[in-house]
C-alpha cells in the first residue's frame, strides 16, 4: 500500500518534470535570434594589449578594430586605414592614413593619438605585456595630424606589417585607458577595469561577461562600415569537447569553431543526414614537431635524426590517429603559404633506410637489441605535455618503431606548466614534442638562428641549440628582402636545409574544423591568427 503511494508521488513528480520540460520547448520569443558561438574555455581579459588566447581574439574581433586585416585569401586589406600604408624607398618608413569619422562605442572619434598611445603603453617599462616585439623595432613615431602618422623602423624588416592585423595591435581608446594605465603605475593588469569592460571601434559593443558562462555583445549602430546585421552575439563557454558537439547538434550553439579531429566524421554525417550546416576543414599555420636536443651527443650526428624520421610512419599516423585531419610536414612552412617549398627531402616511412643510416653512423646493435657507439647507448627520453592524447599516441607509435630499429625510448611526460616552464625553458629534454603557431609570414629567425639559443644568449626559442652559419645568413636576409620572388628563394633554401638536417622532426600541419549553420551568411574561414571572426561585421542571418 505504502509502496503504491510512493509510486504515486514519484509519478506526480515525474509529471511535473515533464511539464517543465514541455513548457520550455515552446517558450521561444519573437526577439531577434542571438548567434551563439561555442568555445572550450573562458577568457581572461578583453584588453587586447594583455590578451594571449585565441578565444579572446574571437570576441575582440567584434569589439575592436585593427589598422589592417588579413582576409580569407591571405591578403592585407585596410581596416581603420583609408588604404594600405605606403613604404618609403629605403623600406624604413611607413605612412598611415586613418579613416575619418571612426568612433569608439562611447562616441569619441579615433585619432592618431590613440595609435601612438598603444605604442607608449606597450613600451612602458614594468608593463607586463605578452609581446612588445612589434614596437621595440620602431625608431620613431611621428604624428602628422589627427588622421595621419608615420612610423620609422630601426632596421629593415619586411615582416613588420603583419602584426598590425592581429589582436595584439587592436586600437583601444586613449581617453579611457590612459587613466587606468597611469593610476596603475604605467602598467595594465588583467584584473583592470578595461579588461572586463572594453570599449573599441568594432561592429559590436560589449554587454556583459559572466565568468565561465558567457560573454555577450550587441551591435554598434554607428560602426564605421555600417551597422552590423546581427543583433546579439553570445560566446558560450562549454569546457568539454563532447558537450560542445552535443550542444551543436541540439542547436544550443550555432557555431562550433575548431572542433576536434575525431569529431569531423560525425559532423559530416550530420550534414549528410540533412542538417542545415556547413562543415569546413582547412589547413592552419600550426605544426606539431619533435625537437632533438642537439647538445646531447646522440643527436649530434644528423644521420641519427634522419633515421628516427624515416622510422616513423607519418602518413599512417595521420590517417589512423587523426582520422586524416592533418597534412604531413617536412618543414616549418605549411603548403598554404606562398613560401612553401614542395621539393624538400621527404621522409616517407622506411625502417630499412633508418637501420642503414644508423649502421653508417657507427651504431652497433648490442646483445640486448639496443644499439651502442663508443660505450654510449642509443637511449633517450621522449617528452610532451601529459593528457594530450594525440601526442601520447605519437609517443607510443614512435617508441615501438624506434625500438624496432635499435633505440631505447623512455616516455616521460609532464603537465603543461612544468613542460613549458621548466623542461623546455631550462633545456632538460632529449626529445620534446609540442606545436608552434606561426604567423603567415615565413620568417622563423627565433627558432633557428644561432643568436637565439636561450642558454647561450639568454634570448630566443632555439631550444634545440641549432647552429648553421648558412641558416643564420638566410634568416637575416629573409627579413631584409623586399622583393617577394627573391624572398621566396631564400625560404626555399632554408626549408631544404632544415629538411636535410632535421633539427626538428616535423610531424604534421594542423587542419582546423569549423561547423556553422547554412543560415549564417558571409562566414569565411581564415587560417591566420586573425581567426574566423575576422569579418564578423559582415555576418547576417539568411532572410
Amino acid at each position, binding site marked *: 500500500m*505504502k509502496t503504491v503511494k*510512493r509510486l504515486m508521488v514519484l509519478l506526480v513528480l515525474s509529471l511535473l518534470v515533464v511539464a*517543465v*520540460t*514541455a*513548457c*520550455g*520547448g515552446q*517558450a521561444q*520569443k519573437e*526577439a531577434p535570434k*542571438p548567434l551563439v558561438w561555442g568555445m572550450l*574555455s*573562458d577568457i*581572461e*581579459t578583453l584588453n587586447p594589449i594583455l590578451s*594571449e588566447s585565441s578565444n579572446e581574439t574571437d570576441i575582440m574581433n567584434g569589439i575592436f578594430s585593427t589598422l589592417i586585416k588579413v582576409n580569407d585569401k591571405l591578403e592585407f586589406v585596410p581596416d581603420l586605414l583609408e588604404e594600405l600604408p605606403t613604404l618609403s624607398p629605403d623600406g624604413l618608413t611607413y605612412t598611415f592614413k586613418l579613416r575619418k569619422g571612426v568612433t569608439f562605442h562611447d562616441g569619441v572619434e579615433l585619432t592618431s593619438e590613440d595609435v601612438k598611445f598603444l605604442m607608449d603603453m606597450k613600451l612602458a617599462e*614594468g608593463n*607586463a605585456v*605578452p*609581446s*612588445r*616585439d612589434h614596437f621595440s623595432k620602431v625608431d620613431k613615431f611621428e604624428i602628422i595630424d589627427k588622421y595621419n602618422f608615420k612610423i620609422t623602423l630601426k632596421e629593415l624588416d619586411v615582416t613588420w606589417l603583419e602584426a598590425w592585423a592581429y589582436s595584439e595591435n587592436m586600437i583601444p581608446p586613449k581617453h579611457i585607458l590612459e587613466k587606468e594605465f597611469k593610476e596603475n603605475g604605467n602598467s595594465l*593588469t*588583467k*584584473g583592470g577595469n578595461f*579588461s572586463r569592460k572594453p570599449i573599441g571601434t568594432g561592429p559590436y559593443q560589449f554587454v556583459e561577461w*559572466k*565568468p*565561465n*558562462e*558567457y560573454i*555577450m555583445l550587441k551591435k554598434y549602430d554607428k560602426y564605421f562600415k555600417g551597422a552590423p546585421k546581427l543583433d*546579439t552575439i*553570445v560566446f*558560450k*563557454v*562549454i*569546457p*568539454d569537447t*563532447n*558537450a560542445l558537439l*552535443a*550542444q551543436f*547538434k*541540439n542547436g*544550443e550553439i550555432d557555431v562550433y569553431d575548431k572542433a576536434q579531429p575525431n569529431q569531423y566524421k560525425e559532423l559530416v554525417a550530420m550534414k549528410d543526414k540533412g542538417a542545415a550546416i556547413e562543415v569546413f576543414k582547412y589547413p592552419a599555420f600550426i605544426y606539431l614537431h619533435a625537437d632533438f636536443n642537439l647538445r646531447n651527443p646522440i643527436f649530434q650526428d644528423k644521420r641519427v635524426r634522419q633515421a628516427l624520421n624515416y622510422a616513423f610512419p607519418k602518413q599512417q599516423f595521420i590517417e589512423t590517429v587523426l582520422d586524416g585531419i592533418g597534412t604531413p610536414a617536412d618543414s616549418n612552412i605549411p603548403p598554404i603559404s606562398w613560401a612553401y617549398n614542395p621539393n624538400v627531402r621527404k621522409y616517407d616511412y622506411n625502417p630499412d633506410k633508418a637501420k642503414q643510416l644508423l649502421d653508417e653512423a657507427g651504431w652497433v646493435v648490442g646483445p640486448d637489441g639496443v644499439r651502442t657507439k663508443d660505450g654510449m647507448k642509443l637511449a633517450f627520453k621522449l617528452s610532451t605535455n601529459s593528457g594530450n592524447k594525440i601526442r601520447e599516441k605519437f609517443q607510443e607509435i614512435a617508441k615501438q618503431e624506434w625500438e624496432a630499429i635499435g633505440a631505447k625510448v623512455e616516455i616521460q611526460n*609532464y*603537465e*603543461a*606548466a*612544468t613542460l*613549458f*616552464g*621548466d623542461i623546455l625553458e631550462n633545456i632538460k629534454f632529449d626529445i620534446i614534442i609540442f606545436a608552434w603557431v606561426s604567423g603567415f609570414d615565413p620568417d622563423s629567425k*627565433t*627558432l633557428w638562428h644561432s643568436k637565439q639559443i636561450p642558454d647561450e644568449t*639568454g*634570448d630566443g*626559442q632555439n631550444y634545440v641549440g641549432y647552429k648553421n652559419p648558412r641558416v643564420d645568413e638566410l634568416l637575416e636576409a629573409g627579413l631584409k628582402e623586399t622583393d617577394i620572388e627573391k624572398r621566396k628563394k631564400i625560404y626555399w633554401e632554408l626549408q631544404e636545409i632544415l629538411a636535410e638536417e632535421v633539427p626538428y622532426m616535423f610531424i604534421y600541419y594542423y587542419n582546423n574544423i569549423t561547423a556553422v549553420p547554412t543560415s549564417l551568411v558571409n562566414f569565411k574561414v581564415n587560417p591566420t591568427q586573425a581567426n574566423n571572426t575576422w569579418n564578423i561585421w559582415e555576418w547576417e542571418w539568411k532572410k
Partner: protein
Amino acid sequence: MFVYTFRRTLLAIPLLIMISIISFTIINMAPGDVTSMFINPDSDPADIAALRAHFGLDKPLLVRYFIWLGRVLTGDLGTSMWVGRPVLDMIMERLPNTLILAGVSMLLSFAVAIPFGIISATKRYSIFDYTSTTFAFVGLSLPNFWFGLMLILLFSLKLGWLPSGGMRANFDEFELIDRLRHLILPAIVLATGTMASKTRYMRSSMLEVIRQDYIRTARSKGLSERVVIYKHALKNALLPIITLFGLLLPSLVSGAVITESIFSWPGIGRLVVEAIWTRDYPVIMGVNMMGAIMVIIGSLIADIGYALADPRIKYN
C-alpha cells in the same frame, strides 16, 4: 553545549593554520609557476624575471607564506596571479552556481535515498529491496562523465526534452522555467552518484533499529507497522544520516569538476582546476581554505545535531 561549540571553534584556528601551511607547501612544491604560462615565442627572460618579482615569487617560501597569512588575517584573500582579480570576487561569482547545483542534487538524493532505504529495510529481501540495492550500486559505479553524456544523448539529442548544457538559453532576462530545465540533468547526475551510499546507510541503520527490543515492545503493544516504523524507529535510524549530512556539507561548496565540465556549469570545480593548471597560488589557497572551513563547520554541525537528536549524547 555553548561552551563546547566555543571550544571547538577555538580549536579550529590552529587546525586551519596547520591546513594552510600544508596546502601552501604542497602547492608550491609542484614545479613551475604562473609565469611559465606567460611564455610564448616572444617572451623576454628579463620580462619573465620582472613578472616573477611583481608576483613576489622571487621571495623565499616562508616569507611568501607569512605575507599571505598576514593578508588573510585582515580578510584579504589576495589577487589572482593569472587574471589579476581579487580571489574573493572570483569565488563569490561562482559560489551561487555551485550552491544551487549541489544543494538541489543533495536534496534530490536524500529525497530518494531516505524512503528507499526505509522500504528496503522493512521489506528486506523483497523484490523492491533487491531492485533498489541493484540500482544503488549501479548508480554508485556509473562514472559521472559517462552517465552525463548518456543522459544528454537520451534527453537532449534523441528526445529533445531538455537542454544539454549551460545555465540558461535566455541570455536577456531571468526565466525560471529556463533555469530549471538546465538544472535537471546535472542535478540528476550528481545525485545519482551519492544516492547509493545514502540508501545503504539508511537501510542498514533502519535494520539495526528495528531489531531492537523497544521496537518489539511497540509491535507487541499492537501498534500498527506504520506507527512503529515512522514514529518509533525512524527517529533513531536517522542519526547516522545526520552525521552524513554534516560530512557532505563541504561538497556544497567544493564543486564537481566533471559534471560542471560536461554540463558547462560555471561552478567552483572548474575554477580550482584551472587555478591548479596555471599555478595560481592565491586562488588555490582561497578555495582550499574555504573547503577546510566547511569541513570543520560540517563536522561541528554533525556533532551538535547528534546531541540534539539523541539525548543520550552529552558534550562537556
